[in-house]
């Protein structure tokens, strides 16, 4: 199980690297789709069918939005010469990556090994959840019953985002 997921995550890393370095923006968007759809397979292997369904829908919508934006504008990647500012950003990137590796070393001592989740918190939710929530699917029980207010807030965020997108796209804007 761990081997299969590792192979898929390696594939995701390759797709992300290609998306970052592609010359054509449309190919970069499609390569970004590799990452999202591989994540669906990972969720299925990790026994999370609800997540897989939601992720496949969301990834498709995201791809459609991104392809629409790219086709409505330019596909040319902005490549300039590798000047001093590019050196500064590359140096910053390496520095921040090293700092994060140090955090990984600190944190990995406290992580439980893969596949040995103790269910310390989840037991209170899992035991007798069907009687308390009336939902056979435990994830649905948590989302719509134990954390109903959170889901209400999520719906509010979605509505706000849709209103924001409509407002931004309908603005006339100042002439420059």
């Amino acid at each position, binding site marked *: 199980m761990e081997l299969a997921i590792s192979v898929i995550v390696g594939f995701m890393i390759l797709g992300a690297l290609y*998306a970052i370095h592609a010359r054509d923006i449309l190919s970069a968007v499609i390569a970004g789709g590799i990452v999202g759809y591989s994540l669906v397979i990972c969720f299925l292997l990790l026994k999370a069918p609800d997540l897989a369904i939601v992720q496949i829908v969301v990834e498709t919508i995201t791809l459609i*939005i991104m392809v629409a934006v790219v086709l*409505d504008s*330019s596909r040319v990647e902005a490549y300039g010469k590798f000047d001093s500012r590019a050196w500064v950003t590359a140096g910053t*990137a390496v520095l921040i990556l090293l700092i*994060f590796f140090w955090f990984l070393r600190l944190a990995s001592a406290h992580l439980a090994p893969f596949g040995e989740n103790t269910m310390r918190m989840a037991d209170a939710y899992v035991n007798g959840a*069907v009687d308390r929530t009336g939902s056979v699917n*435990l994830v649905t029980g948590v989302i719509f019953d134990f954390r109903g207010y959170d889901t209400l807030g999520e719906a509010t965020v979605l509505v706000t985002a849709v209103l924001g997108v409509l407002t931004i796209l309908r603005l006339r804007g100042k002439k420059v």
Partner: protein
Amino acid sequence: MTVYRLCFILFLTGLYGVITRRNLIKIAISLSVMEFSCFLFLALIGYRDGGVAPIVDMADPVKPYVDPLPQAMVLTAIVIGLATTAMLMAVIIRIYRKYGTFDIREIKNLRG
């Protein structure tokens, strides 16, 4: 442990893209790669060996279910991620219509 490290490397790949790229669309793609690696990490934490999907079988209710709490959290986060990505792309297309480029350096030079 290998899979945690690979997941972290995926996060760092997205971070590298956000820092070094100049094209706004590529920055948006890198942000969503970082987002995906966080989702994957939470789903990995919830897994346990021999676990079954957290859907109760009424005939045999005591089974080693995988942890449903990280899955519920990731489900919320995925939908919020879609909302932020849609908002980001709307802002990016407005910037393109105003300046005619995706290059953040040129946009900075055109200001004022």
